[in-house]
């Protein structure tokens, strides 16, 4: 179906038939893109529509995509069925702590690797960068052991502590700091600023796009994170949102999917808000290789 979309690029040869196709081509292309959009948005629309239907009707077919009048009782129910408030609070606390931590550590290390001279700098930078190749799975068992030895198993700190420093964030912030001209430093030195002031008052504000990119990518990654919470957390009241929802789906089964989907919709809201506010930064970060699952 979608392969037809590219046929629409067979443009411009002079015959009459071709000219007719040329006029038709954009219409077909846009029709196919609209069809693709419907497919891409359908699961989100399904979750929202079903969450607003009576639980008894949640499996009724044909599906009602416009749940009128909306029934909000699922949203009340999901808070009663599971400690959703704790899930939201835990997710928010973990995610925001990691975002703030990564902003601090990456701003410092990115500035050092990008703008300060010190012996061994390049070797150290490449070593840090090389750790980007290491997948989470290759470290998670020893990290779990370490967390247990530190008596941090089943605490939110077990999720936060190992995530505070980041090779990707270091790389990203270094790129932004390196783009800023040296003249700012020279001028600040003439004004009598010391090195800390040059970093904090001059270069850090100039790299705020990088900070925004990193904050948004990090927020998204950790708000949605599943594997680490699944392994590190045991008690229900410590669960983060994705873990709590999967757990809820597990014991509700197909009993009342509208309640589960109400929870899913709640978990999507912050992410949608972030897209509306910061899509420019998101896209910039993705182009640099961030947000890879």
């Amino acid at each position, binding site marked *: 179906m979608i392969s037809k979309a590219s046929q629409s690029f067979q443009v411009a040869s002079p015959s009459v038939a071709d000219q007719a196709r040329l006029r038709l081509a954009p219409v077909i292309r846009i029709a196919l893109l609209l069809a693709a959009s419907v497919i891409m948005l359908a699961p989100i629309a399904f979750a929202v529509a079903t969450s607003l239907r009576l639980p008894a009707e949640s499996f009724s077919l044909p599906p009602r995509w416009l749940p009128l009048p909306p029934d909000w009782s699922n949203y009340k129910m999901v808070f009663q069925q599971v400690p959703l408030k704790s899930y939201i609070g835990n997710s928010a606390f973990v995610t925001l702590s990691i975002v703030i931590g990564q902003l601090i550590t990456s701003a410092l290390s990115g*500035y050092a690797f990008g703008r300060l001279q010190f012996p061994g700098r390049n070797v150290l930078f490449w070593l840090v960068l090389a750790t980007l190749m290491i997948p989470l799975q290759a470290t998670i068992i020893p990290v779990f052991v370490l967390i247990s030895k530190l008596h941090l198993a089943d605490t939110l700190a077990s999720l936060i502590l190992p995530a505070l420093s980041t090779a990707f964030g270091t790389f990203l912030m270094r790129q932004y700091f390196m783009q800023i001209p040296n003249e700012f430093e020279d001028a600040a030195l003439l004004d009598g600023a010391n090195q800390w002031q040059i970093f904090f008052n001059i270069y850090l504000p100039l790299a705020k796009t990088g900070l925004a990119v990193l904050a948004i990518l990090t927020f998204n990654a950790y708000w949605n994170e599943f594997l680490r919470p699944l392994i590190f957390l045991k008690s229900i009241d410590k669960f983060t949102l994705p873990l709590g929802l999967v757990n809820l789906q597990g014991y509700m089964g197909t009993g009342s999917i509208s309640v589960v989907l109400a929870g899913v919709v709640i978990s999507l809201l912050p992410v949608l808000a972030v897209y509306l506010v910061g899509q420019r930064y998101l896209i910039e970060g993705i182009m640099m290789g961030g947000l890879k699952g």
Partner: protein
Amino acid sequence: MSVQAREHPASARRPRLFAKLTEPSLAGMARRKAAMGYLFILPTVLGIVIFTAGPVLASFGLSFFEWNVIDSPKWVGLQNYDHFVHDSRALNSFVTTGKFVLLAVTLQIFLSLLLAIGVQATRSKILRYFFRAAFFLPLLTSAASIAIVLAYMFHQDFGVINYYLGKIGIAHIPWLNSSGWALITIVLTYVWQQIGFTFIIFLGGLAGIPADVQDAADLDGATGWRRMWDITIPMLSPTLLFAAVIGVIGALQVFAEPFVMTNGGPGDATRTVVMVMYESAFSFLQIGYGSAIAVVLFVAILVVTAIQFRLSRSWVFYQ
């Protein structure tokens, strides 16, 4: 240093450390910058050593031990690896993951390239904004939560997908209940979620094709598929390589979708490498064996990536 401090009465009255930090000489500045450099990278380097570099080595080390967390670890040499090559369930998970990666990454790159070319050719600003949002949004959702939604939609009897397929005369497909279909369903779910990533990368790559190349193609009368194969794809090839490398690395680690939607089943049809690693280490508490699987996966990722770069020499075109 101290000589200078004596020459400046104002700074001589300050504590010595502060004098060092504020002295104006060039050599002093270089030294301060170096000290600051080490200080600034300390949190990152420490964190990476403790939570990434150290653990990777520890995974490797643990893979030579038998350990159930409670008793003390017992050195078993290569026994875990020996067990691995005879463990049909683990080997099968590599085959399953390989199939998954091949299907998912191919489909993802093919579809997202078509979408990106389509959106790139769309002039209307509003439509472009809408398409970009529609194709991109799934990427922002949590793989685990959205797998819940798609599992309901793919439900054999009550799912909306089979309902609409039924309307056009296609009998109910056992999306998640047959070992033939389950992996395909996981692929579709994964691609649906990940497509926005390659889409955005391709859109950026397409925008980066220089106008003079496009003009030259116009002058030569290059149109349609020829233009696509001779100009767009070669110009985009570094972006395609980037997308393929990142896509394969991500897909090799697939976990949440099969965990939530099928729990590896039916049978072992969707049991991926990370699922087997997770079960070994955290359900059966075979820390050593789980580590061995993690090491094999890590090596597989490195090897596959190296092969991709090697093969890319014959098809990637750098301007």
